[in-house]
């Protein structure tokens, strides 16, 4: 027996009309829960993005002797080009190094006076493709002993600290997001169950006049989907609002940490779509389970 779309539409419309309060209560539950969950996701994304940005900036520097031969430079460049773990490098010649020196010590002219480009070492600023501290350390060590190399420097302690902390923060925020999601699911499921409990007698009558389980379920599932989608959609402006509020702190130096958590609007849209999808899924599944309890007539 085919389910009539007209029947499902009329039943769903009737359900909405007769149970406005519980319908609205479910939407609010979905809205608030998914706003919290989406916010947790955005914060996690912000943390990932911020630490990624810091990590991406990590490079090691191969300082060459000021008198290194062109052959020694060519050997270093060849080794850098061949290594798959090296994403790229910039060569800073002696004049470049001097320019940097001038900028760095602009407030100490006595130092600048005593330095000329000829005594400064040229260098390769190497950007690894990996961000693991151990790998970068091993990579840097490969260049330390090559002819013409004066010294290789890398901020390994900084990398290690950053790595450990960003992992901790990321896992911590993820745990919060999961806990919030579980709380959200329980809250939404409970609200739907309350709404359907109020109509258990309707369901009993439907079953007694010969309605199949799908005839009873489907309007409730459509209703649950509508509630989930509306609740999820209402969470979208909240997520943008939160992101924009953090962006608003840009002017305030004391809240620099928050500023770095601001994510691109594309990320907010993706999170919004995910949150709305979860809302719809929770609505459908929640209704399915809640109705199921009363179908055994």
């Amino acid at each position, binding site marked *: *027996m*085919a*389910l*009539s779309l*007209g*029947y499902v539409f009329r039943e769903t419309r*009737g359900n909405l*009309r*007769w149970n406005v309060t519980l319908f609205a209560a479910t939407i609010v539950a979905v809205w608030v829960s998914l706003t919290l969950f989406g916010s947790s996701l955005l914060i996690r994304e912000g943390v990932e993005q911020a630490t990624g940005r810091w990590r991406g900036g990590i490079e090691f520097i191969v300082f060459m002797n000021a008198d290194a031969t062109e052959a020694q430079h060519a050997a270093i460049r060849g080794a850098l080009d061949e290594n798959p773990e090296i994403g790229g490098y910039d060569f800073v010649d002696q004049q470049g190094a001097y320019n940097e020196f001038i900028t760095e010590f602009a407030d100490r002219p006595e130092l600048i006076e005593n330095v000329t480009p000829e005594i400064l070492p040229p260098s390769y600023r190497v950007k690894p493709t990996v961000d693991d501290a151990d790998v970068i350390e091993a990579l840097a060590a490969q260049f330390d002993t090559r002819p013409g190399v004066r010294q290789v420097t890398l901020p390994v302690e900084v990398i290690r600290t950053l790595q450990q902390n960003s992992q901790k923060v990321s896992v911590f925020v993820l745990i919060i997001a999961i806990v919030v999601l579980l709380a959200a699911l329980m809250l939404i499921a409970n609200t739907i169950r309350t709404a359907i409990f109020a109509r258990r*007698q*309707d369901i*009993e*009558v*439907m*079953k*007694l*006049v*010969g*309605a*199949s*389980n799908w*005839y009873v379920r489907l309007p409730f599932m459509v209703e649950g989907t509508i509630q989930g989608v509306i609740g999820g959609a209402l969470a979208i402006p909240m997520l943008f609002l939160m992101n924009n509020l953090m962006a608003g702190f840009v002017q305030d130096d004391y809240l620099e940490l928050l500023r770095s958590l601001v994510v691109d609007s594309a990320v907010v849209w993706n999170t919004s779509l995910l949150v709305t999808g979860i809302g719809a899924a929770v609505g459908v599944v929640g209704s399915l389970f809640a109705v199921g309890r009363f179908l055994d*007539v």
Partner: protein
Amino acid sequence: MIELDQVTKIYKGEVLALYSVSCKITKGEFIFLVGPSGSGKSTFLKLLNRQETADQGAVWIAGKEVGALPRSSVPKLRRLVGCIFQDFKLLPNRTVYENVAFALEVTGRSRQQVRTQVPSLLELVGLSKKTHSFPHELSGGEQQRVSIARAFVNRPPILLADEPTGNLDGDTSNGIMRLLAEINKRGTTVVMATHDQNIVNAARRRVLRLDRGRLTADEAKGRYS
């Protein structure tokens, strides 16, 4: 049409509802199921539309063992077995028309069929002028008529009535009985549980008497005292 073969039903907590009940009901009969409260009348009816299943023995309807039907076939059974209840069980948010139409819609009938069949049923039960009323705007007798229209709109071969006059006064009860007799005359088997002696004695139909779950009497043109 309907056969119970040594049916026993025990509810949780060891409450004996029916014990080794056997009987046959043929097509087109009008049966009174009588006995005091707790004698097993409602359980008898619930076994016929698979609201309950027997713990022992078997219930047969139209050649099929009701207890052995898969869950997916229960809706089909219920379209063969219309039900009316003492408390009417109408959907309070729907009009008279919608309450009756609902029983057709859930069986997949087209809107056209619904539009033609519902008014004729409402005419049969005398509620043509109350089509757009809601249940709370109707008297008890009128609500029971809606319930009968809903149960009969699929033209089921069997109609179960569980104390349909239990909440109604004498005159209204008589009206309901006339309606059930009319439906029975059209070929539908009616099984009605009641403890209203006046109704049973006036009708002089077959009477099955239950007492503490046991079938103690089965009389054609029986009386109830």
